[in-house]
């Protein structure tokens, strides 16, 4: 959609007494900041409510699992969120995750120092984003198809390159991040990482020129161009940065699983889209708030843990999962957010 709209950030009227608080609340909820706040409120609310799903909840184990699994989802959703914000969508997620995990594991096992292996692994996964970015920014092809095709090619190349040894072991430093041995100021590394991802991601998306330009092109390419934004460069960078984010998720998953195989990225594509949208971003681009995305990642992870714990049959679990995503979309529409 390339029409110009006015966006409401915060309260649109000044503090005249006669504006009722329900109206002000409704207005606030219509903003992506409001949506994010709602998400955080729901996450916090769900913690004690988990008792309904299992008599062993809430517990430290439950919270730790939520933070850990939510971390992976939050990292993937950062990349996907940027792409969706720019008006596109990224289907190359599984391939990029697998590339990041595979090459980091492979290079480390060949003797490279772990930090170097990670950087090279990230660069390799970002190649998928690089190609996506070049094609999307210089042609009219829809991102849906471009990322699908590039992702397929990337996965196929990896399959060919990895013949016979698709499984890779993880460098021990990465494993140590997740196996409970490390302790930073008494908090688990995954919590520190989640906070770091939240702060960095929010800053990159909302406070850098790059991030602002992504909002702009997601709203209206014409207006962005008129405003002097280098649209092609921003569009290219979006996919490339997203590719790095997916690779980072792959590296983290490699450490968590102390190993990986080529299918490691497969289960993260659709949840990443769900989380971005539930977190308050518009699927057509232009609005969004990474804080809301992270909250949605935690919310959906916690819900999935609760549903698993309740012991429902698999079919019921899937129905519930889908219903919750729909419900979240509905709530945000009622809240007045732009869809």
């Amino acid at each position, binding site marked *: 959609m390339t029409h110009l709209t006015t966006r409401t950030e915060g309260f649109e009227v000044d503090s005249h007494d006669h504006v009722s608080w329900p109206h002000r609340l409704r207005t606030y909820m219509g903003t992506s900041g409001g949506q994010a706040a709602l998400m955080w409120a729901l996450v916090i609310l769900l913690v004690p409510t988990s008792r309904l799903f299992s008599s062993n909840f809430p517990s430290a184990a439950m919270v*730790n699992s939520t933070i850990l699994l939510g971390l992976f989802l939050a990292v993937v959703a950062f990349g996907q969120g940027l792409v969706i914000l720019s008006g596109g969508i990224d289907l190359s997620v599984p391939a990029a995750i697998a590339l990041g995990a595979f090459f980091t594991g492979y290079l480390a096992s060949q003797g490279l120092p772990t930090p170097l292996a990670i950087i090279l692994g990230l660069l390799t996964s970002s190649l998928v984003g690089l190609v996506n970015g070049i094609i999307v920014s210089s042609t009219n092809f829809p991102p849906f198809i471009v990322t699908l095709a590039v992702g397929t090619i990337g996965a196929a190349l990896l399959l060919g390159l990895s013949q016979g040894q*698709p499984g890779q072991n993880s460098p021990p430093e990465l494993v140590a991040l*997740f196996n*409970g041995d490390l302790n930073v100021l008494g908090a688990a590394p995954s919590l520190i990482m989640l906070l770091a991802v939240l702060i960095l991601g929010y800053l990159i998306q909302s406070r850098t020129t790059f991030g602002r330009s992504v909002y702009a092109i997601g709203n209206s390419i014409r207006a962005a161009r008129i405003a002097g934004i280098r649209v092609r460069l921003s569009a290219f960078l979006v996919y490339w940065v997203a590719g790095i984010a997916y690779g980072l998720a792959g590296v983290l998953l490699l450490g968590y699983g102390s190993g990986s*195989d080529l299918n490691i990225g497969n289960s993260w594509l659709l949840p990443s889209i769900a989380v971005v949208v539930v977190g308050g971003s518009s699927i057509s681009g232009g609005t969004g708030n990474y804080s809301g995305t992270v909250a949605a990642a935690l919310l959906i992870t916690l819900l999935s843990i609760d549903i698993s*714990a309740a012991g429902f049959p698999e079919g019921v679990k899937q129905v519930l999962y889908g219903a919750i995503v729909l419900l979240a979309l509905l709530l945000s529409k009622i809240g007045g957010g732009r869809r």
Partner: protein
Amino acid sequence: MNFKKKLTLVGAMTVVAAFALAACSADVSPSGGADGAKEKIYINLSYSGNNWQDEGANLAMAVAQAPEVAAKYDVQKVISGSDPQKQISDLQSMIASGAKLIVLYPISPTALNPVIQQGCDAGVTFVAYDGTVEAPCAWNISYITGARTENPEKAFFGAQTAQALVDLLGGTGEVMMNRGVAGTSTDTVHYDTAMSVFNEYPGIEVVNEFYGNWDSSVSQQETAKALAAHPGVDGIWSQAGEDGVIKALEAAGMEIPVTGENSNYLREKLSAGWPGVSSGSAPAQGGVAVKLGLKILADGADSVPKDIEMPLPWVTTETAKVCPDAEFVDGCNFFSQADDSFVTEIFEKNVLPESSYTAATTGAPVSALQALPSMDTLVQPESRRIYTRGVCDAGWTPGPVEEGQVPAGLPGCVKE
């Protein structure tokens, strides 16, 4: 404008070129020229990209490229992916190019029936491994209904590992079940046969079941979630992906009995004292399938029964033993140099003794083939036919099997 048009043209040409390249490299085109003296063998995979499939394919290639085989046959590997239509179309191409033997991992037991029948009518021999096909003219080799080697009455991976778990728990306790891919016949058979064992023990309670999708990472995540809800669980029954189950248990600081399939990590832990059993699907089936196919080609269709069972591997805490190098010596059953999700059952002392770690990871040809043992030791009893063919043999009818099989009372085929 001009630039954009040029770019679109270049883009279109690149796409066409890519298709042409892909079509050429699939290379199942009618034998272009070539000597015609060598007949063709195809190894056809559907899924790929995980250790199991890679090792199965490598072993198949290693056997098919052994010098004595390579002298008579050309071998090619074709990966079809998880789309049945693609596998059907690839099979048609192979048939059209004059294949003599097609060893395949079928994507579905039924979708390939018409194309397999087509191939049989054209004189092609089909051998399906691990997954089975219902087409009557194809041979099946699978572990799904397989039995313990020391007591062939004890059948079904699901049931046998469930019984082992019950024994390790002393008959009472809470258990969780890590299943495979929902809706597949393999997962259903394993689960149903395991539940029939668990249901016989009132002291055993299944507190949670989840789908690890036969994937280590998903299994690890699902197990972590389930452990949060059931911190008091006493044992876990798992299908493939059990290396992820163990990692989740280690992260939670719990060492409880685990039964699973054949990952290197499970066996490493077993050898260090972790209670449990390793059994299940062996990638060795790929190599054995090729040997069976070669025997059919050499000795005729009657020399090999249509339904072959792969014996169930069985490694326990007491019998897990690391191999000193890359060869199976002294009854060893896992490797120190393999990664955690490497599937260790690449060797079977009776049907695939010529295998090695190198053959499974690189597909390097084995130096010489050993003869297969008597088919009587490998043939599937008629009572279990319904699991792999979907129907019972003539003269047999579906019903509970009470005799000759442990556990008794499972659905199967009974003589009319």
